[in-house]
């Protein structure tokens, strides 16, 4: 193994080792020390991550680095051909970036937790839960990093389940409280629903592509598409529903996406994430904001090459719905952690939406920036909650600016970042300003410029594909893939500049299938981009600014250095990650991760003038999505933040008056009820199941069991009359006596050899063997 692989593996194993230490001797190590043990483990991982990151950034021949060695974990003999499930380290730009981000964020959060859990880990059944918390955290760290470095979907699934387990354990950390254990179970079960789809997708991959390795799977997929074999030639019936070819591939993609839907809480399955806030706040920061929920996006990014256009469209729709409804719900939340949870959901929706519209690097870029500032904001909220002694209601807070300045200002940085504060037109801004802008830009491309970018030369591709409309885009689509990011030409072999795929019949057939997304899927995120700054600013203002609304809460508030130091680090991380530190690497990784036949990846960076000419794009300014976006959404943050300040400038009464307005009241009620998702699920799913079971059991009870009982009863009466009058007085007695006598006699006879002495039994057995042997010999001799 190369040194980088060893470093990655070491970084993965170190938290596992610390987990073992804490699990076995944690209770001996004691309260603060066990936390530092876990921090040591994650620091080792951070060191390895930094080593790999520097090596990667300074590497010239990255293709050589990507070629890693693997070990056959098990070799399945499948359909006559051997299929090895290989354990192999995935080493590419995405892995390195994510690895570094995860280790950095989790280091900060581990350190924060030591200060936080000191007050929150109360005794349960006689033993302190402090070391148990860090034990779980280390296990989670191990599983998350393993998820990042595993290059086969199989091991990805294994670690996937492991992070699910850790999230279950940590949400239910206060398992002695009912709501916590309920939330844990809810999260676990909801994830199972998603993972069921994931398993189905996995089975499809297993059956049709016959490999679990990501790259091989993608290559096989492309090859099968070219030759129209394998899954594209498949033709099966599912419950009488006839599925074949492209639809089956779409199903496979959607199935794989279902896992992401569960983990990163997308629209139908988003209900578990707000409840997951029952866990300790560092857990919310690490697992439910920064890393694990982002694992869904990471999964989509990994299996991106197996997605058909339909599957991509499905993903985009799901993301769009999620980001809309959750952002709306976030407006009315009063629990500070709930606000952050719903904003997390909304941002995840942005990422998934970006993935769906094909903005691969943009979505991941948003993932990384979001990880930093959202983890920072959660830690800030944890700081606030700790300072206010477990008060989470923002209406009781306010005016904490004086008490906890560092928290206040770092939180403000986070707000600015998520609101996308920046000076439009200039490259000056904070995280969300760049990443969200890229996602929206791609959405704009897909919604408006799609034909204009590809519609130009319909004549060229006409003879290749059937209809003239779809062929020409194919060429450009091929170009657009490889035009994304400047440096793919050297890093990828067959990626020529621009027209590298001019005559690629495969790509010719593809972009034809790419949907031009409907306009509402562009406009909804725009609206939400206006809403986001509002509720984040509302949250910040209600918490920190204004006059203290609850004196004794305000009186106790304080902050401890062990807990605000990580905030500083994360704030720095936010600033750095905003300014294009990760961006080029992701853009380059996109080159490798999106080499798929059925994918058109549009890089958020719109090409410069030269590329315009190269791509033959129209030069007029209004077709430049960024220019367009400046007009549309550039100043959304001003509007949103301004509105928030306007409303909450002095106290809550203005907001209260607005809430009383007739129509607003209705909406507010709906939003307070989280758009009735929980009610619907409870009544329809849970209640329905209960009802069905009740009906079934009642029917069984009434008709079968009672019926049998009655039947037996009646027949017994009949038989009794019959036998009592006729049989019994007749032969029965004599028969019984005879049987009794004979049984006794036989028993007497049989009892003789039953001496109960084991030696005699051995003797009898041997004698029997002798007889049998004698018989055999006699037979043989005769």
């Amino acid at each position, binding site marked *: *193994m190369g*040194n980088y692989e*060893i470093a990655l593996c070491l970084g993965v194993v170190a938290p596992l080792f610390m987990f073992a230490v804490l699990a076995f001797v944690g209770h001996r190590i004691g309260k603060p020390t066990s936390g530092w043990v876990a921090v040591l483990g994650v620091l080792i991982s951070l060191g390895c991550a930094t080593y790999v990151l520097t090596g990667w950034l300074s590497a010239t021949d990255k293709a050589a680095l990507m070629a890693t060695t693997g070990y056959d974990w098990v070799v399945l003999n499948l359909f006559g051909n051997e299929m090895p499930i290989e354990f192999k380290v995935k080493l590419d730009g995405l892995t390195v970036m994510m690895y570094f981000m995860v280790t950095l964020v989790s280091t900060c959060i581990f350190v924060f937790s030591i200060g936080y859990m000191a007050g929150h880990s109360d005794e349960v059944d006689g033993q302190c839960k402090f070391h148990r918390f860090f034990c779980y955290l280390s296990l989670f760290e191990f599983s998350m990093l393993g998820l990042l470095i595993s290059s086969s979907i199989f091991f990805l699934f294994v670690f996937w389940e492991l992070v699910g387990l850790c999230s279950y354990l940590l949400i239910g950390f206060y398992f002695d409280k009912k709501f916590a254990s309920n939330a844990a179970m809810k999260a676990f079960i909801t994830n199972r629903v998603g993972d069921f789809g994931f398993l189905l997708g996995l089975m499809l991959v297993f059956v049709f592509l016959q490999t679990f390795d990501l790259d091989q799977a993608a290559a096989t997929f492309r090859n099968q598409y070219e030759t129209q074999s394998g899954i594209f030639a498949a033709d099966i019936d599912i419950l009488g529903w006839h599925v074949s070819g492209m639809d089956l591939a779409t199903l496979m993609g959607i199935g794989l996406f279902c896992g992401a839907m569960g983990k990163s809480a997308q629209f139908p399955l988003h209900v578990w994430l707000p409840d997951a806030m029952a866990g300790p706040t560092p857990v919310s920061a690490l697992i439910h904001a920064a890393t694990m929920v982002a694992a869904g996006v990471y999964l989509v990014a990994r299996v991106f090459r197996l997605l058909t256009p339909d599957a991509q469209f499905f993903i985009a729709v799901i993301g769009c719905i999620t980001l809309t409804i959750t952002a709306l719900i976030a407006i009315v939340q009063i629990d500070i952690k709930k606000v952050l949870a719903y904003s997390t959901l909304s941002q995840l929706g942005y990422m998934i939406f970006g993935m769906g519209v094909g903005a691969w690097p943009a979505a991941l870029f948003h993932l990384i920036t979001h990880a930093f500032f959202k983890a920072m904001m959660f830690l800030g909220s944890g700081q606030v909650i700790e300072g206010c002694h477990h008060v989470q209601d923002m209406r009781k807070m306010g005016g904490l600016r004086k008490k906890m300045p560092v928290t206040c200002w770092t939180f403000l940085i986070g707000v600015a970042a998520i609101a996308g504060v920046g000076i439009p037109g200039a490259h000056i801004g904070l995280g969300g300003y760049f990443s969200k802008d890229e996602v929206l830009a791609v959405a704009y491309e897909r919604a408006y410029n799609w034909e204009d970018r590809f519609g130009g030369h319909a004549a060229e591709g006409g003879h290749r594909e059937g209809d003239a409309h779809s062929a020409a885009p194919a060429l450009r689509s091929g170009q657009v893939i490889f035009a994304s990011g400047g440096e793919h030409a050297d890093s990828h072999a067959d990626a020529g500049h621009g027209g590298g795929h001019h005559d690629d019949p495969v790509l010719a057939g593809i972009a034809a299938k790419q949907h031009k997304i409907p306009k509402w899927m562009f406009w909804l995120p725009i609206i939400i981009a206006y809403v986001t700054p509002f509720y984040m600013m509302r949250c910040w203002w209600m918490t920190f600014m204004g006059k203290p609304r609850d004196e004794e809460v305000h009186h106790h508030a304080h902050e401890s250095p062990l807990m605000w130091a990580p905030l500083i680090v994360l704030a720095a991380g936010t600033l750095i990650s905003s300014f294009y530190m990760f961006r080029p690497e992701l853009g380059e990784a996109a080159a490798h991760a999106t080499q798929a036949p059925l994918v058109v990846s549009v890089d958020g960076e719109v090409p410069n003038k030269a590329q315009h000419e190269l791509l033959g794009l129209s030069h007029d300014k209004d077709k430049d999505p960024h220019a367009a976006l400046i007009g549309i959404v550039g100043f959304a943050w001003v509007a949103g933040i301004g509105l928030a300040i306007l409303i909450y400038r002095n106290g809550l009464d203005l907001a209260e008056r607005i809430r009383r307005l007739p129509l607003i009241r209705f909406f507010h009620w709906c939003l307070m009820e989280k758009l009735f998702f929980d009610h619907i699920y409870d009544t329809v799913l849970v209640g329905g199941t209960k009802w069905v079971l009740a009906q079934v059991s009642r029917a069984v009870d009434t008709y079968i069991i009672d019926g049998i009982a009655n039947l037996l009863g009646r027949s017994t009466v009949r038989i009794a009359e019959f036998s009592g009058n006729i049989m019994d007085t007749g032969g029965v007695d004599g028969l019984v006596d005879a049987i009794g006598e004979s049984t006794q006699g036989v028993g007497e006879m049989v009892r003789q050899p039953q001496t109960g002495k084991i030696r005699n039994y051995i003797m009898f057995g041997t004698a029997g063997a002798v007889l049998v042997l004698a018989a055999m010999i006699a037979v043989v001799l005769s």
Partner: protein
Amino acid sequence: MTQFSVPWKQSPPLEHRGPARGVVALARFVYSAAAPIVSRFPGLILTSAIVFSTLAVWIHWELFSYLETIAASDLNGTAKSIWGQSLTVGEIGAYLQSNSVAAGGVLKYLLWPLQMELFRDIVGLAAIFQLFNLIPVYAIWWERKVAGRIQSRMGPMRVGGWHGWAQSFADGVKLVAKEDLVPAQADGMLFKIAPYLAFVPSLLAFLCFPLGSYWVFRNVDVALIFIIAMVGIEVVGVIVAGWASNNKWSVYGAMREACQMVSYEIPMTTVLLVPIMTAGTLNMVQIGDAQSGGWFTWNAFHNPFTFIAFITYYIASLANCKRAPFDLPESESELVAGFHTEYSGFRWSLFFFAEYAAMFVVSGLAVTLFLGAWHTPLPSTWAFEETSLFKILLNGILFSSPFWFIFKCFIFIYIQLWIRWTLPRIRIDQVLYSCVQVMFPIACVALVGHAVWMVLLDGSMFSTLIRWVLGLIFAAVTFGFLSVAAFGYRNGRRMVGYLAVKQLPGS
């Protein structure tokens, strides 16, 4: 001889009859004749005994190989059968004449019997047996000296002149001459056979034991398991002895020995799998030769897990040859010498032969498997071409030779003595606890960790780095120990007095 009134029937004292009388007279004569001589040249005799025995074995080997060349040069080169008819005296003589060897006429009669395998085996057995007898004799004497030093006294000083080096021989003569007591209530047959059951296996363990890559009597492919089995079988004799003595203390000692041995063989064998995995064979010669590349290629420094395995093995081996702090079966203070309470005379000494031989065997295993068997810290690749006897000798002194093996073994035996005279004995429940709950988990961790290490990063830059680091740590520790010892030796007498005063209460 006065008759004591004892509850059981007393065996009448025997007069010397037949050969016994002759043997006694012979022993008396030999000692009276040898004593003045050995007391004159003690050091000379001590060293020359070892040197000559080794040289004898070496010469035999040279002769055998020479004879093999003769047989190979023979025209009708059929395989030599044990009865040795294949080479006649005439053929040997002809060969010698053709090579114009001087004194071939006499030499052929000397060479002829050497082609009989039985003869060769007898010679080899004699060498092994002499080694087997010399080692306990000197180990016992050395233990008494070490104990004396540790307790700020001199130890045996009289017999043999120089530091009482012949003490053990004198004890041997005394023990042979002592009366052979068999308690009347004891199970006579078992009581008599038990010492042999303890003695013979520890002798057999020497048969497959390589002292050097050429210096092995039987080069067996399963030598390692064979030796472990022999060390384990030795316990049968101890248990039978304790049982047959029909003595409460002896039975306690025997039962303790049984639990202790059976439970400590598990971690010991488990950690022994680690060097086996490293070398990929059970043949001890190959395991030893695999570590010829200098001290940092020794198995103990292969990775942290092998080092843990080495430590674990050494502790388990202490328990396995019932040395302190695990010497519960024969604890003098609690069980009045435990399983050999009732023994006396020669049978008693057999137990001690067995025990000290077992000490040598387990130390030899530690050396062979972990600490680069018969190799010096210098890599053997620097060795000279063995053209002359002088260069052979130089290689032996500088690079690899049985002397180094025995030297290392005695270092470990010294550590055993050191521990015995330093640490207190631990309780039986502590013994079993430390086996089952401490050493066995550690052994499993070492095994699994080593396996993972071998799979993942064997041969990588990282593992080489680790190997160097461990080797340097070990070298530093060794050097520090040697320097302390040297200081102690330089002003030893003052130091002893100083320590003695320092240890006095109220000082």
